[in-house]
């Protein structure tokens, strides 16, 4: 087996896999942020809190109702999405005429409330969530050990990301959505219910966060703080990628996860900040982001 700068391939590939998994979460979350931003012009600060809520809904379904992982993978995003729709209808819809920064402040407040409530009832120590029996164990690939569940996370995230991309870029509903992003007034003049489209888009974006939360539950312990730190990294990912394109958000998410994993191999101290350093470099060279379209 080859050795690279004294680093064994097991370590390298292990960290690459970890990076790919982090990248999967970055991709799903930044995709949701980009979809929401496209239509609502709101940066959803509550995205991390709703990702955490997704994980908690899965845990609650299992412990109080005995509903297992697979149904939870569908149910939790639906519940989180429905909750998001309520938030959008009751609160966010009042802010569309105002400066976009108010949307950021509102969702920040919502994130504080959601996190605080879960912290009150479940503490901060974290709750374990079992890997479903079908996905326990792993494959010995000869050069490294691949846990089945982690492979599943990567596959599931790629499927969801691709599905979202397909829906937005290739279907009629997606065409409405893209048109409404460009010019909501004109689209509603053609008889399309734009407020409904906005509500559903927010629900969908938030459901993606809930889905990511369920995927994450067996890997990281279910913890009220799990979303807060992640969302800031996802913000950096979004700044690096630019929110102009769906595919851009997905690619940037995976890419930065892998870069972070590689940094953990070669310079472990830097792994926590590498994404922020990349953000600084991108701001210097291409301020609008790698895939960004708008002027600034």
């Amino acid at each position: 087996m080859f050795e690279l700068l004294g680093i064994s391939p097991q370590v390298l590939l292990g960290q690459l896999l970890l990076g790919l998994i982090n990248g999967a979460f970055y991709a799903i979350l930044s995709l949701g942020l980009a979809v929401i931003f496209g239509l609502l012009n709101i940066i959803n600060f509550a995205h991390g809190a709703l990702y955490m809520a997704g994980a908690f809904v899965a845990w609650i379904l299992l412990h109080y109702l005995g509903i297992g992982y697979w149904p939870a993978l569908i149910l939790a995003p639906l519940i989180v999405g429905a909750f998001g729709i309520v938030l959008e209808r009751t609160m966010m819809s009042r802010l569309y005429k105002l400066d976009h920064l108010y949307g950021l402040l509102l969702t920040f407040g919502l994130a504080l409330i959601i996190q605080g409530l879960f912290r009150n009832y479940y503490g901060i120590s974290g709750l374990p969530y079992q890997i479903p029996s079908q996905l326990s164990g792993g494959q010995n690939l000869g050069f490294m050990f691949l846990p089945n569940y982690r492979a599943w996370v990567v596959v599931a995230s790629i499927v969801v990301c691709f599905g979202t991309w397909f829906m937005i870029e290739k279907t009629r509903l997606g065409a409405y959505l893209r048109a409404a992003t460009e010019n909501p007034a004109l689209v509603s003049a053609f008889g399309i219910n734009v407020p409904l489209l906005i509500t559903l888009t927010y629900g969908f974006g938030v459901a993606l966060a809930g889905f990511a939360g369920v995927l994450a539950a067996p890997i990281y312990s279910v913890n009220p703080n799990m979303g807060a730190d992640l969302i800031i990294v996802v913000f950096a990912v979004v700044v690096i990628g630019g929110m102009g394109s769906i595919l851009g958000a997905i690619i940037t998410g995976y890419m930065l996860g892998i870069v972070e994993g590689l940094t953990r191999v070669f310079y472990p101290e830097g792994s926590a900040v590498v994404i922020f350093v990349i953000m600084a470099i991108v701001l210097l060279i291409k301020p609008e982001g790698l895939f960004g379209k708008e002027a600034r």
Partner: protein
Amino acid sequence: MSIQQTDTPASSPIANDAGMSPLHKAIFLGLLAFLVVLPFMVYPVFAMKIMCFALFAAAFNLLLGFGGLLSFGHAAYFGGASYVAAHAAKVWGLTPELAVLSGAAAAAFLGLIIGSLSIRRQGIYFAMVTLAFAQMVYFVALQAEFTGGEDGIQSVPRGKLFGLISLEDNISLYFFVLALTFGGILFLYRVVHSPFGQVLKAIRENEPRAISLGYDVNRYKLIVFVLSATFAGLAGATKSQVFQLASLTDVHWAMSGEVVLMTLLGGMGTVFGPILGAAMIVTMQNYLATFGAWVTVIQGVIFVIGVLLFREGIIGVISRWLKRPL
């Protein structure tokens, strides 16, 4: 894109740059008189905490309320300066005034670097970029040697002012803190009510127009960013002297959120709003401390109510009633 203040009187031009309006002068004098007797009525450390946060919020308000730039990472300057000041006082053995100044200088430097990168984006991107850089500062504080990681820098000596006057006693420290924070707030007031401040407001209201009038908009933005960071740092450095502690709490993103909340609650773009907002939030935290995470929930609720129903803030509403800028 900036936070528009179309109906707050604070954005109305103040013709007389030479001095303070009589109303503001009266309020500042009343406030000063109140603060002089305050330490004999309440626990001085509590009063000092309020003053530090009032300066922090006022510095933040310079950027948001008058510059129209929402930074979501002001904890970096507040907390970063508190680490530097604590280190300067404890390890280098500097006197309190020099320790505080070195903290503020470090915050200015940090503000210069982060500011020059962040102003390349606008609106919500600006908020996200500043938040991300502040998180980077947080990770550095968590891992660096001199910050003491999870423990922070503890038992920072209060030392002797100018090497002469001992600040061990809470009352003498109180008047040191009063001079720094009140002086800082007056300086920020002067900045806002100067020709520089008028240009800032012009940029906030209509940036393309300011550019077409020949103003180097990015230079103004950077200067106001650095000023705001410096005074946020002065506040953080002073706080580290009061509590004899610099810890991760002060660089955490929650602190960045708190200062936004203080400013929003009191009234952004007003002179006295951030001071009132800081006093209210610190008092609330003090009385609700036993309720643990409920403090976070209540802060979140205030945020939501403030954004949905109460965007002018308390002083903003009073100012509208009185038809005078406050």
